[in-house]
C-alpha cells in the first residue's frame, strides 16, 4: 500500500532576537507569565505592527537554502479566527493567492543521500501565546491561564509536498532541515518547542489525516509510524479512514481523535493594511545570498575534499552542526582530520545518550568532553604513545571526569610496553600458568588468541598486541 506523507514544519526564528512585529525579546522561556509583552504583542487598541527586518532576512535565507522562488516583494495577511491565545484574534501570516506569494515557493531539497523532497512554500508568521491548563491538560482543568510571552515570536512555516513514503524518510528529511536551520543560525533547535512538525498521512490512496500537536522532530517520526500502522490496520479490516485532524498524545505516544471537531474554518484572509509591502528586490536577494553562512551540503563537500573524509563520515558529522563544529575545533588544535573524525563518529558517539540526544538535540550533554580532549587523544594514538584499546578505555574515563587523555595516560602508566624484555617476561608468566592452553594452541589458533588475551590482561592492556602475538607464536614454535 502506497503511503504518502507531507510535512508542515514550524520553526521559531529565535536568532532574530526580537518578535516579528514588536521589540519584545524572542527569549520568553523561563520568564514570569506575561512579563515578555508590550502594547503591540498583547494587541492593545491603537497599536500597529512593526516588521522585524532580521526575521524577513532569515525567512529569505531559509527560502534560498530550500531552493525556493523568492518574490520581489512580500505582504502579510490577516488570518482571522477567534482563539484565546491570539491577542488580536487574528494571526499575521502570509498567503498564496491573487498573484501574491509567501516569501518562498516551489522549492526542492535533497536529503538522505539522493532522495528529493519538494517544498510547497515557506512563509513568515507570528507565533500565538500559550494556554496553560491549571490541571495540566484540557480534560483535567476547570480553567486555563493565558501567557502571551510567546505571542509574536517569528515563525517560518515550511510546507512540503506529500513526498515521503515512510517514517524513516521523514526522519532523514527532518535531520537535514535541522542541520540547515542550525547552519543558518536562525533557530536554537535545542530550545523546547522551537521546532514543531505537523504531518499529513494517507495510506493506499485513502483519506488524508492531519496530525497536529507534535512538539518535537523526534516525535514526528513516531507519530507518522503510529498513524501509518493505525490506517493500515483499519484498511485491513475494511474500515474507511476518515479525513480528520488527529492530535499527537505526547505522553502515550499515540494519535487521538480531536476532542472538538474542527470544522472547515473560513479565515477571511485579507492583506494587513498596517504593514506596507516589504520590497525584497534584487539588491536584497544578492546581499542576502552573499551573507548566507555555509550550508550543510557545501560543508560536507569541503570535509571530503579538504580533509579527505569519507562521504559517510562527513555526512554523519554535518547532520548535526554541533558535531561538525566540534570536529573543526578539534582539528584546529591537532590536525589529523581522519583520525579525529573517526574518534568522534564511532567512539565518542557510543557514549551519547540517545534519549537525551533526541530530547535536547544537545549532543554531548552530560559528557565532560571538548574538542581539545579528542585532539589530545588522537595525538597520543598517532604518535604511538598508547594503543587503540587503551585510548578507548581512556575515552570512557574522561567523558565522565573531564581529564585530559595525556594526563590520564601518564598517571596510570598506560604507555605502551615497548620494552621487548618486559613483554617477554609477561609472555613467560602466561605460558607457565596456562600450560593446558599452550598445548592446545599448538593445533588450535583460537587458543593463541586466548593466550594473547591473558598477556593483555596481565599488562593491563599496555602491551602492543601485534608484538605480543608474534612473540607467542615464536614461543609456540620453539616448544
Amino acid at each position, binding site marked *: 500500500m502506497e503511503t504518502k506523507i507531507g510535512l508542515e514544519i514550524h520553526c521559531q526564528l529565535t536568532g532574530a532576537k526580537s518578535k516579528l512585529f514588536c521589540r519584545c525579546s524572542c527569549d520568553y522561556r523561563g520568564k514570569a507569565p506575561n512579563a515578555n509583552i508590550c*502594547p503591540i504583542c*498583547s*494587541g*492593545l*487598541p*491603537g*497599536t*500597529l*505592527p*512593526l*516588521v522585524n527586518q532580521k526575521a524577513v532576512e532569515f525567512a529569505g535565507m531559509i527560502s534560498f537554502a530550500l531552493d525556493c522562488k523568492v518574490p520581489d516583494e512580500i505582504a502579510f495577511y*490577516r488570518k*482571522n479566527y*477567534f482563539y*484565546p491565545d491570539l*491577542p*488580536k*484574534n*487574528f494571526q499575521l501570516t502570509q498567503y498564496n493567492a*491573487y498573484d501574491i506569494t509567501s516569501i518562498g515557493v516551489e522549492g526542492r531539497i535533497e536529503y538522505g543521500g539522493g532522495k528529493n523532497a519538494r517544498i510547497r512554500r515557506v512563509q513568515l508568521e507570528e507565533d500565538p501565546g500559550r494556554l496553560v491548563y491549571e490541571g495540566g491538560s484540557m480534560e483535567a482543568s476547570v480553567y486555563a491561564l*493565558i501567557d502571551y510571552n510567546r505571542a509574536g515570536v517569528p515563525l517560518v512555516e515550511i510546507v512540503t509536498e506529500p513526498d515521503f513514503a515512510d517514517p524513516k524518510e521523514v526522519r532523514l528529511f527532518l535531520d537535514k532541515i535541522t542541520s540547515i536551520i542550525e547552519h543558518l543560525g536562525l533557530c536554537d533547535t535545542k530550545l523546547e518547542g522551537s521546532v514543531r512538525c505537523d504531518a499529513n498521512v494517507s495510506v493506499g490512496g485513502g483519506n488524508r489525516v492531519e496530525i497536529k500537536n507534535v512538539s518535537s522532530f523526534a516525535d514526528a517520526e513516531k507519530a507518522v509510524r503510529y498513524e501509518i500502522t493505525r490506517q493500515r490496520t483499519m484498511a485491513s479490516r475494511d474500515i474507511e479512514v476518515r479525513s480528520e485532524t488527529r492530535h499527537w498524545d505526547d505522553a502515550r505516544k499515540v494519535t487521538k481523535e480531536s476532542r472538538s471537531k474542527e470544522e472547515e474554518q*473560513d479565515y*477571511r*484572509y*485579507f492583506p494587513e*493594511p*498596517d*504593514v*506596507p509591502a516589504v520590497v525584497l528586490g534584487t539588491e536584497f536577494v544578492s546581499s542576502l545570498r552573499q551573507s548566507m553562512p555555509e550550508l550543510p551540503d557545501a560543508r560536507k563537500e569541503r570535509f571530503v575534499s579538504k580533509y579527505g573524509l569519507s562521504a559517510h563520515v562527513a555526512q554523519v558529522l554535518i547532520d548535526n552542526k554541533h558535531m561538525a563544529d566540534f570536529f573543526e575545533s578539534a582539528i584546529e588544535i591537532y590536525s589529523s582530520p581522519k583520525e579525529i573524525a573517526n574518534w568522534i563518529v564511532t567512539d565518542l558517539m557510543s557514549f551519547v545518550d540517545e534519549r537525551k540526544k533526541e530530547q535536547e538535540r544537545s549532543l554531548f550533554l552530560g559528557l565532560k568532553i571538548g574538542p581539545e580532549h579528542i585532539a589530545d587523544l588522537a595525538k597520543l594514538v598517532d604518535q604511538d604513545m598508547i594503543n587503540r584499546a587503551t585510548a578507548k578505555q581512556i575515552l570512557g574515563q574522561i567523558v565522565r571526569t573531564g581529564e585530559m587523555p595525556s594526563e590520564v595516560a601518564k598517571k596510570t602508566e598506560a604507555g605502551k610496553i615497548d620494552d621487548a624484555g618486559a613483554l617477554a617476561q609477561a609472555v613467560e608468566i602466561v605460558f607457565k600458568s596456562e600450560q593446558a592452553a599452550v598445548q592446545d594452541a599448538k593445533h588450535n589458533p583460537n587458543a593463541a588468541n586466548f593466550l594473547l588475551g591473558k598477556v593483555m590482561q596481565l599488562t593491563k592492556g599496555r602491551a602492543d598486541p601485534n608484538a605480543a602475538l608474534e612473540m607467542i607464536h615464536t614461543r609456540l614454535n620453539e616448544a
Partner: protein
Amino acid sequence: MALYTLDSGQVAAGVKGREFSAEEYIYQLLERIEKVEPKVNAFVSVRKEALDEARVIDKKIRDGEQVGALAGVAVSIKDNICTKGIKTTCASKMLETFVPPYDATVVKRLRDVGAIVIGKANLDEFAMGSTTEFSRYGATRNPWDISRVPGGSSGGSAASVAALECTVSLGSDTGGSVRCPASFCSTVGLKPTYGLISRYGLVSYANSIEQIGPIGRTVSDVVLVLNAIAGADENDHTTVGGKPAHSLRQRKGLRVGLVREFIEGAEPRVAKVIHKAADTLAKQGCGCEETSLASVQYALASYYTIAMAEASSNLARYDNVRYGFDLDPEGYEWNSYFAKARSNFGEEVKRRVIVGSYVLSSGYYGKYYLKAQQVRSLIKRELKALFKKYDILIGPTMPILPFKIGEKIADPLRMYLVDIDTVVANLAGMPAMSVPAGFTDGLPVGLQIMADEFQEQTMLDAAYLFEQAAKVQRSPDL
C-alpha cells in the same frame, strides 16, 4: 475678552508673554465646559488635572525654560485616540475601563510642544457613524442648534471647538469623520494625505483609509496643530518620511475645479452657499470652473466595503480578556464568553462587523473587497488627472444641512449616503478639508477643498484665502 475665545496662536503668545497664565486660561475653559456641557455633551471625560499641567507650563515660563509652539493650549482628543493614564473608551461599553499605558504619537507630540489635554471628546462608537448619536455616553448636540446632530464621528471634537470648550481638537477621519462635523459645526477640519500623520495610538476602524486630523476655529489653528503632529513616526510603518512645515500664505491665482457631481447631489440650499463660495474665490483671483469626477458613483460602495471589511477584523480583539469591562467569566467556556462579551457592541458596530465579515468570506473576497480596492485605484487615477488641471477641487463637504437628532438613526442606508462627498479623499489617500462657507437658515455649511497627495500647503492656501475673504462666524451663542 474671555480667554476661552482666543485661538491657539493667541493663547500660546499670551501665556509665553505672561499676559495671562495658562492656569487662568484653563480655569476659564473648565468653567465654560461646566456651563455649556449639559447642552452640548461634547466630552466623554473632562480633566481637572489640566490645571496642574497648566501650572507646570506657567512655572517653566517663569523659570525662563523653553516651551513649545502650543504652550498652554487646551486640546480635546477624540476618545478613540490613546492617552496614557486617561481612559480611552471609543464611546463603547467594550472599552469602558480601558486605560492605555501609552500615548498616541499625536498626543505625545502635542504634549511635547506644551499643549494640554483638557478632555476626551465624544464620538460614534469606534468612530462608526456620521452623527455622534451612536455613543454609549449619549448623543453630542450641535452647538448651533442643540436639537440637531453635530456630524460625526468626531462630533465631540468639532462641537467642543465650536462651543468654546477647548481651543483645538484632534479627530479621526475614515470616511469624513473630521470634515463632516467640522462642516456641521462651522469649524475648520483637515484630513491629511494618508501617511502624513502617525496612526500609532488611534484605535483602528479602517486602517487603510483613515487619518487623524486637527479641528480648529481658524485655518491658523489647524496649521499650528498639523505642524506639531505631522511627520514620520517609527511606530507607524505607513507614515512617510520627513517633517513637513506648513504656513499661512497669501496666494493668488489658484486654479479651482468645482466638482459637478458634488454640487448636483447637494440639497439646493447647500449648493447655493457653495456657488457663492466659488464666487468668493473667483473674486480673489482664482480661476474657477466646473469639472466632473465620474467615478464618484462607485465611491460609497467601495468605501463601505473596505471600511467594514477592515473593521470586522480590527474589532475582533475586543473579547474582554485583556481589557474591557466587568463581566464574570464563571460558567462560560471561552467561545460563549467571547460571544457574550461581544454582544455588548452597539447596533451600528455589530452591523458593520457582520457585513465586513461577509464581504471577506471565502468566495466573496474577490467579488467585493478586491473590487472595492480596484475602485480606489480608479478614483485615484481620475483625481490625479484632475490635479494636473486644477490646484484644488471644491464642493460642499456635506450634501445636506445638520439634521435633527434621531432623524436618520433608524435608516442606516440613508445615513450612509451623507458621506458621499467625503469618502472620495479617503479612498484616494488625498488631503481634504472643510472650512466654514456660511449659513443658510441659521445652519452652517462647509466648503470642502481637496488637493493632490502631500499638497496640504496648496489646500491651506486656498482655505486661508477663502477664510480671509468670507469672514464666516465661528462660534454660536450658547
